[in-house]
């Protein structure tokens, strides 16, 4: 299972990471109880600062996707409840809408880009 981070992308690296890990958990590719790499390992592999990966993990933990325990590392907790997911979806849409406005592209192009990625 691979994650990809583009340092020059529109979304900040921690957000790219958070989105991809959450997607892997939702699709079941990362099953409940699966151990994630340590913050330092992932940061080194991606050439990012540890704080960037730590922020992605922290947000995923707040959302209920993962659980970190001292001495046990970080493990997948599961897919959060539906209302929480809806909230996240609206929030993600807001972030995307902001990026679309910044880029100045029209609605059709923006939706086509989303369809391509999904």
């Amino acid at each position, binding site marked *: 299972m*691979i*994650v990809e981070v583009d340092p020059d992308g529109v979304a900040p690296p921690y957000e790219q990471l958070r989105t991809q890990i959450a997607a892997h958990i939702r699709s079941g590719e990362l099953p409940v109880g699966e151990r994630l790499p340590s913050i330092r*390992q*992932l940061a080194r592999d*991606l*050439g990012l600062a540890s704080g960037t990966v730590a922020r992605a993990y922290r947000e995923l933990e707040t959302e209920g996707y993962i659980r970190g325990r001292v001495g046990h590392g970080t493990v997948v907790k599961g897919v959060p409840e539906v209302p929480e997911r809806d909230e996240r979806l609206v929030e993600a849409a807001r972030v995307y809408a902001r990026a679309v406005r910044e880029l100045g592209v029209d609605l059709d192009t923006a939706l086509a880009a989303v369809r391509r990625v999904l």
Partner: protein
Amino acid sequence: MTQLAHILAVPAIVLILGYLPIGRRRLAAFATSHDLTVTVPNGSLLIAYLARSARWRSTGAALGWVSGATFVLHGNAFFWGAAGYLLGALGAEFRTSVRLPPGPRRAELVQRRSKDYLSRAARWGPVIVLAIAAFEFWMPFRYPPEQDGWLTAAVLSVVTTAGAAALLWAGRWLIVRRPRPVVSPDVDRADEVIRMSSLQIIGGSALALMCLATSGMAFGYALEVPGLLGTVQTGLPYLMLLCALYAWFRVRVSR
């Protein structure tokens, strides 16, 4: 004259072998032993790794051998040669890594652990030898030997064993935590093989040193130990010597 030949002949041979250029046959043998297909991108990575690691290990071994023989250090030239080899192998690891490609970076969401790369003997051998070293260290306190200097010999041997173990774990830490960006399947596989090979070489040579140091501790003084414990005490140093040979010639080079 014979003494000088003894000091210089072995290191000279080791250095010549270590600095030989990596030919196609050497590369093919390494690739075959690890079920690896050599391609243009991973071929250059493998050649660089094989050349660098061979140079560092042979330089370390030669320096260790000469130091041990010249300064008549505790142990012998073989022991110090192996110690130099281990230090050289560790030194080579500081320069080994896959470079991050420009543009988007990719990584695997998998936790890396040293046990995924090591054989069972390399994983558990050091733990068992440390337990045996602790037993050997405890024995003269329980059955004090008559000759002087046993405490110095025991402390020196146990410190050497612990030192080799510390180098082993430092090597594991260094190699497993090295960045592993996802580049292409052939380069990724070559990186896995390089890690595996380095961990086995460091694991095997450190284990051999630990066995030699532990056997030296038991050979250092004669104990009057009764019963079954006495039989174990008499047999352990020879067993440790056999284990050192096994670690050097099997564990170090196993795939």
